């Protein structure tokens, strides 16, 4: 018959030592792994500045900067310069998150370029990276992370 065989008795006095040493090692490594040399106590610009995903920080910063410029109900697309479908996939998701009430259209989806017609009618264009040679419309804001544009109205023949 099955039985519990395990009513606890007080352990030997030194028994907490091993887990305590383990805890000390892991806590020390956690503290040592902090980004001390990157200005730990300096306020970060974005949530990703010192994380493993720091490469997406410029896109996050640009989308966050667009919040006051893009009205509710507008459509928006985020591209990169030069084009990078992986990064554009991430930034489309950032736009979904940081621009609630607007409609984010994907320039890329799941790491692949989306067909141009998906985002052709976006009213606002965010470009992470260098300023494009051909401006997509009226420049609203330029930051070190990229540019924010109000797209030019499209003529009937361009559809």
């Amino acid at each position, binding site marked *: 018959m099955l039985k519990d065989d395990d009513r606890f008795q007080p352990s030997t006095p030194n028994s907490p030592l091993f887990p305590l040493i383990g805890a000390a090692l892991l806590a020390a490594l956690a503290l040592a792994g902090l980004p001390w040399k990157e200005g*730990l106590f300096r306020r970060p610009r*974005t949530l990703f500045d010192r994380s493993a995903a720091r490469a997406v920080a410029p896109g996050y910063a640009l989308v966050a900067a667009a919040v006051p410029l893009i009205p509710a109900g507008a459509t928006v697309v985020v591209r990169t310069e030069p084009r990078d479908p992986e990064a554009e996939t991430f930034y489309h998701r950032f736009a979904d998150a940081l621009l609630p009430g607007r409609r984010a259209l994907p320039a890329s*989806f799941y790491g692949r370029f989306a067909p141009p017609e998906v985002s052709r009618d976006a009213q606002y264009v965010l470009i992470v990276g260098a300023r494009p040679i051909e401006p997509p419309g009226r420049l609203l804001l330029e930051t070190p992370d990229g540019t924010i544009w109000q797209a030019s109205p499209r003529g009937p023949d361009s559809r």
Partner: protein
Amino acid sequence: MSGLLWLGSLLLVGLAGIPLAFHPAFARFPFSTRIVLAAASGAALVSFVMTAAVLLAIPWSVPWLVAAAAALGAALRLLLRAPARVGVPPARESSGRLLLLSAGVLSAAAVAAALAATVAGAATSPDLLFFWGPKAQQFAFARSFDASFMRDELHHHMHAYYPPLVTNLGAFASMTAGRMSWTGATLTFPLLLGALAIGLPGMLSDGPGRARAAAIAALTISAIAYLGIEADIAGNGEMPLLLFETLAIALLLSDSASDGPTQLLAGIFLAGAASAKVEGLPFAISAAGLFFAARPSAARPFGPTAARLLFPMVAMLAAWFAFGATRRIFFGYSGYGRFLDLYPDHLRAVLSAVSRSLWTTGHTLPWLVPLVCVLLALPLSRRWILPVGIAAVLTAFFLFTYLHRAEDPSLWISWSASRIFSPVAMLLAVAASLGKPAAARP
């Protein structure tokens, strides 16, 4: 400031857990532990009430949700009878004060490291921005699950079928604070880790003694902190999952696990885990099942015990899947193929990628250090079956899942394995508390 308001509003869910956590059956726990139990059980109850409200077409409002969840907690309390031996707080040990103090300092240091990493933007999970946060934000706007938002093909990456607890609590905090706070969401990592650091020592101390319990708690907290910083879990579902799982396991390993109230509270935490992330379901099922093997005396009579451990989870997930099915959004959890369509030729690549992922997360030390502590504690009492058995089931489940993809799963594993294997580190740390006392050794 808005981040702190968002975060602070989560404390309201603790009100809903007070009727249960302050039942006389839990008088043996220190006040600090009961506060943590109230907060965690309240979070699970509020999430359930939010899901049920959507099914009943009742728009969410914060006071109503807290009141309804508290009423549910009070109703559950009426079902509970205090055990014959109402708990007495464990006697204070005169010796070991230095050990207790050291354990407390180490836990505090680990939580401080998690807080510093989060505030510095060094631990943020992209998943917060990809799906947890946007869904929570949209649901707060809609004061319900927004079915059209979930159906939108441009939101396919938000995994509509993912269980609702994390997004429910994010929506709850957003409604209370008036807006979503991304910073506040990341701070749930140190907040919940801190809650665990406060609550766990008191839950473990009825077994191995206060000093060893504090040391085991410090080991658990340090492992989660280090792993969480290395794997960037701030703002995603990992920390809520780990909170529920750890509390449930601590209750099921306790000397009072034969009591109905303890089993019901453990069942609510297992439900919380299953409602937090998909992998919480195999955890909860294996925990309930292995409890009967690890604690056969405590599990008798089997029927009522099974009901207390499983009914909360069945109710919470039934409400969620009823929503998905009635709105024709989802009918179950999605996978990468049919259930038994496996690619066994990928096994070598999967094992290699998992090893690489765990190695890049602190050189595997968050798992190895607790494992060494388990080995040093040998021989273990029979209760080891519970944490070690769950760890084995989870490992098998994750490998099974990774073998489902037709394409090379290495990239997928590289960004997911260290996070999803985090409960294994916690389980090993808790298992290290189960060494037999010297007098019982052959």
